[in-house]
């Protein structure tokens, strides 16, 4: 069982992010870290490979400045190797271009049975890339998995829904997006951390994957940032004078939030 995990290296969320005033894109010049939401996919992949009794986990990532800090964290957790696509022409790539590049990277690794992704990144939130990768590869797409199991050449997931979950299955190879909390990510061991820097990272450019500069980055983007506005301030809550029936209003309110 060989699994590719798409991981994003993002600016540390603990540090307030900044937008480039010219492009309105997020600044990514500094050190990047592994997106926390991707650690679930890495852990899931490691567990599936162990359960299968063989195979390895390969990381696939696209990042500026040949950044590998986040990849090293996932390699320290136990992934065997990584493919990093890094190239100045990629700056400004929209979700679809990114998905095409990640799909080509998966093909470059070869002999992959399953691709795991998070449902969305912590700094981008488009949530469209998993399905786009599946389409680019021509593989089934299974999304919002809260559990994943492999058996008889098929992947079976429990797909999180608002009401509960659906059982969904597809033949391998397939692309599965996993929700945060699907498994508890392990802490990288000291031994893993020291071995991680010796693990191979295949650094490639968009050109190496067969893309022309006009197909990626700002040039190849079909999306455009038209305007950036500050988030609206939180509105004051609703005050209810208790007339003896306010409990019913609270129940209705919680039902509206799908909490009960």
């Amino acid at each position, binding site marked *: 069982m060989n699994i590719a995990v798409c991981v994003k290296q993002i600016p540390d969320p603990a540090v307030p992010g900044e937008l480039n005033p010219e492009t309105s894109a997020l600044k990514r010049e500094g050190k990047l870290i592994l997106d926390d939401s991707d650690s679930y996919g890495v852990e899931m992949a490691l567990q599936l490979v162990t359960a299968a009794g063989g195979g390895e986990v390969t990381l696939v990532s696209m990042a500026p400045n040949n950044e590998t800090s986040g990849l*090293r964290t996932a390699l*320290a957790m136990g992934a065997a190797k990584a493919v990093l696509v890094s190239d100045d022409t990629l700056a400004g790539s929209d979700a679809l271009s990114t998905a095409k590049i990640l799909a080509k990277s998966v093909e470059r690794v070869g002999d992959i049975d399953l691709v795991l992704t998070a449902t969305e990144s912590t700094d981008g939130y488009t949530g469209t890339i998993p399905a786009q990768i599946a389409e680019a590869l021509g593989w089934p797409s299974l999304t919002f998995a809260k559990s994943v199991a492999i058996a008889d050449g098929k992947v079976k997931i429990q797909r999180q829904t608002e009401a509960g979950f659906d059982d969904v299955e597809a033949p391998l190879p397939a692309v599965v997006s996993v929700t945060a909390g699907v498994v508890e990510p392990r*802490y*990288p*061991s*000291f*031994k893993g*951390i*020291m071995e991680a*820097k010796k693990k191979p990272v295949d650094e490639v450019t968009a050109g190496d994957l067969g893309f022309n500069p006009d197909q990626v980055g700002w040039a190849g983007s079909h999306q455009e940032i038209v305007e950036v506005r500050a988030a609206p301030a939180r509105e004051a809550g609703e005050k209810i004078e208790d007339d003896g029936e306010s409990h019913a209003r609270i129940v209705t309110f919680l039902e509206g939030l799908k909490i009960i």
Partner: protein
Amino acid sequence: MRFAFTEDQIALRDATRDLLAKECPPKAVRAQWEGEEPGPSSAWRALAEMGVLGVLAPESLGGLGLSELDLVLVLEETGYFALPEPIVEHAAVAVPLLNDLTTALTGTEIISATAPNSDLAPGATLAHSFVVGDENGLALVERGQVEIGLCESVDQTRSLGRIKWDSKSGQRLDDPRGKGQARGLVGISSQLVGLTRRMLDMTVEYVIERQQFGVPVGSFQAVKHHLADARIALEFARPLVYRAAWSLATDDPDYEVHASMAKAMASDAALLAGRKALQCHGAIGYSFEYDLHLFMKRAWALASTWGDARSHRSRLAQVIL
């Protein structure tokens, strides 16, 4: 000569910091203080799984075969988060002296140690065995071989115990040139540096948030000066602690002197930071419900154990004069 930590050493520190931020928040320390969670914390088990307990153990015994310089930043983080278990006594004092580490590296066996010239050991309710000392050197004694008298400590997470042992019992440990004790001193000093950083961080955060006369109290010069004094003490202590770790790692003949310098400066820095933190917090700093006391009382306890600043300065004076 390179005067900076390596990428690996920084990575090990960061991994420890990330783990403790999740597993050892003040709430977990408080739970130990109030006796709500008997037994080792989830942080202890996670640190053992990560390999922290075996940093100084040889690879042939399942450890990482690293040096005191690789451990010093890790122990500093355990101070920053006020880890309740006796990790210095276990990982820095006991582990490098033992030949069988089967249960010590997995953390299922917790080993505490008494400080030099003392019969007090922390983690007395948790520890399965103790490293103790007498005029003939160090020995490992099992819990069943000793009498333990639990004592009050200013820091209730420490479960301090008075260990009475028979010098004929236990297993004698080979501790050439008192390295075990020097490792303990440097380990406690690095925890004091971590505690100093923590109290300073908490106080800086507080004085930025707390407003008086329409401005943050941190904008007043008198408050700034207190915090600058604590920061200076921290920055003077830190290099001495790192140097002492380097001396141990490289077998510098003066490692005992350097360990004393580290403990004297780190104790002073932590006590000063505690005083300044308490003053800058105002009345809330005194309250049991506020987290500052968890770190301040640990600092008080560690500053006075393994020899206080005054005793280490006397030791230095004897060497120098």
